[in-house]
């Protein structure tokens, strides 16, 4: 592992089929855009190291399939995630309405309650917008999520979305400190070392 990387964060991308989850990720990691991108099967995985406020963080990003037939697989990825990106399509109201379902699922399967959530309204380059920016903002505020509108095609807001999410995670020490320190440490040694450990909630769920 790289020495100067502060921590490895597990990020999850969820949302309805066709909202552009994989495109957002592709734009973020490879800076490319493919209008004909095939539907994700099961889950996709990418790693990217970014630096936020001088701290380097390695992101392990799991991009889930939105299709209904793969829905059963999604619960397996929630566990241990520190950040989640919830994506909807601003040109399709139904993807916005379904956000409640996704939040429900998140709550059901997520192992920690302080997970950082980011709401992304994708495809703002398109003309036929159906969901207003304010609606998104309101929804995000109501569920205490970060919010941004983005376009994977024009690159608008993509970098920003990931950076803000990571920044917020790093500002929540209980979320990632125990994670990075517990890695590779035997269970029997858990009492040693970090007496003044972070927030209890995050800490306990690790063990």
């Amino acid at each position: 592992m790289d020495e100067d990387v502060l921590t490895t964060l597990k990020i999850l991308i969820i949302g309805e089929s066709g909202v552009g989850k994989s495109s957002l990720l592709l734009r973020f990691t490879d800076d490319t855009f493919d209008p004909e991108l095939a539907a994700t099967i099961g889950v996709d995985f990418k790693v990217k190291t970014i630096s936020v406020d001088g701290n380097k963080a390695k992101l392990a990003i799991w991009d889930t399939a939105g299709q209904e037939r793969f829905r059963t697989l999604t619960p397996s990825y929630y566990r241990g995630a520190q950040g989640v990106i919830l994506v909807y399509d601003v040109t399709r109201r139904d993807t916005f309405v379904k956000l409640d379902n996704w939040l429900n699922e998140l709550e059901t399967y997520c192992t920690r309650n302080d997970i950082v959530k980011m709401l992304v309204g994708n495809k703002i380059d398109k003309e036929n917008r159906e969901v207003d920016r304010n609606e998104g903002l309101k929804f995000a505020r109501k569920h205490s999520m970060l919010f941004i509108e983005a376009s994977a095609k024009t690159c608008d807001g993509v970098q920003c979305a990931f950076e803000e999410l990571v920044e917020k995670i790093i500002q929540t020490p209980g979320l990632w400190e125990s994670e990075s320190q517990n890695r590779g440490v035997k269970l029997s040694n858990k009492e040693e070392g970090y007496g003044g450990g972070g927030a209890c909630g995050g800490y306990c769920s690790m063990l």
Partner: protein
Amino acid sequence: MAAEEKWKGCTSKQHSEAEQAGEKEPCVLLGQQLGEPGRFAYAALCGISLASLFPEEEQSSFRMEFIEGFVKWLDLPDAVLPAMTAFASGLGGEGTETFAQILLKDPTLKENPVVITQDLLSFSLRDGYYDARARVLICHITWLLRIPLEELEVLEESLLESLKEQKEEESETAEVSRKKKERRKKLKRYLLIGLATVGGGTVIGLTGGLAAPLVAAGAATIIGSAGAAALGSTAGIAVMASLFGAAGAGLTGYKMKKRVGAIEEFEFLPLTEGKQLHITIAITGWLCTGKYGSFTAPWSSMLQSSEQYCLAWESKYLMELGNALDTLLNGFVNMMAQEALKFTVLSGIVTALTWPASLLTVASVIDNPWGVCLHRSAEVGKHLAHILLSRQQGKRPVTLIGFSLGARVIYFCLQEMAQEKDSQGIIEDVVLLGAPVEGEAKYWKAITKVVSGRIINGYCRGDWLLGFVYRTSSVQINVAGLQPVDLDDRRMVNMDLSSVVNGHLDYMKQMDTILKAVGIKTKECCPEEKGSGSLFSPPAKKSQRAAGGEAPEEENTMREEDAADGEALPAGRAQHPDAPSCLGGEASLPCPDCSNSGDGKKEAADKGAN
């Protein structure tokens, strides 16, 4: 045997049926039956399991190769590779349970999850190379899916049968085709349809003819054509040749061409007649006059695989050692020593504190042969390593079991292998009982590299003899056979046999009990029963055996015999309070083992008679 012919007839009939059927509905791989989510979960489960079983850096190429091959095998798009690679590198390990649940819920598997085991087995065998790591993985997945492990044994056996059958069939084919042109045409088509059909046919034939063991496992399991279809995609013969060693002679055919180093004797003796996709090699620690005069004697009840060998090595020196051990233990000295050592034994740890003078005066009796054997066992171990590395045994997993100096042979074999390249994936499990080798974890770390499954260290805290003979041979007091090896690895299993083993000699005498304690499969019969004057069961058996000429009946006979064994135990073994009764766990062995144990029993009977 009449039954065999009948079976053959049955299979060939089935062949032609299968041939016809094959044209209509070709065998379908599991990969095509499972839905995409199911396949994804299946591959992910394998990836995660690989990462948890073989997290070591040096295993990464195996993990990646396996998962890449597996994604192709399942016909999953390449787009899933990044995720699978991530799973196989140890990320996303939290999802095992969910994936297993999803997989089990798939309609294809709902009634019969065993097809997963079958599919994995076919995948692992596709290149004619059964990697020990693959077998460990299959066992793990089988466990995750709550499938009894016996199913794997049954599948291995039936796959083997179908491969064997294929081989025979084809050599026959060559002969017949010379005579009948017309038939050749037909056969050619038959081959073109794909060996898959042949395999499928055979397996069906097997189910019909050899019924009992397989029916027990559920006929559907065997007929499920995935395995056969898979093997059909490679040439069955090539698979056979590779798996069992091209020369065909295998281990028994191995002869030491020249004197290797200081080794005078080195030979593999077959313990069982059968063939199996994995083999077991047992290594005896010393020889005694009398009942334990042969290398094979202590292992008579072992049935870990239906293909087992015993290593015969340096009998001259091992016999000397055995006699010395006897003298030491049966003589006056023993009493003295026992008395003198009682406190140390009771305290639980044998340390070379102050050995009684009486013992030291006779020390020369044992020290010399012990020293010689200690040296030779290391040499033999190294030699064994090179034989295994050169794949004399074929490309299939090997389990090594040994006690005392035999365990030392294994230890040095593993150490030698660890230094060589391409030494991974050969050894599945190793069992070292009362091993006179160093017990420091750092020395054992190296051998985790070559062992895929478990490293079992069976020790006895009160083994004063081992402590004694080791006192001068080596400075260190950490002896693996006396204490657990403190190695932090999933493979390392320490077993305190103190309650079973009262002294070093018990490793030989109590082998049956020890094997059971350690979790090695054993036959239910006990060789001791012959001489033990069992009240009524032996005559009954004899008559049954005489009557049981034909196979179907014989099978019943076996059952009855087993039952009789169980009933006769208290009477029959009254003289052997130490002899273990049939353990519940062992009694539930899969049926093929029963049929095998039947054979073994006969052998044992013959031996007993001679």
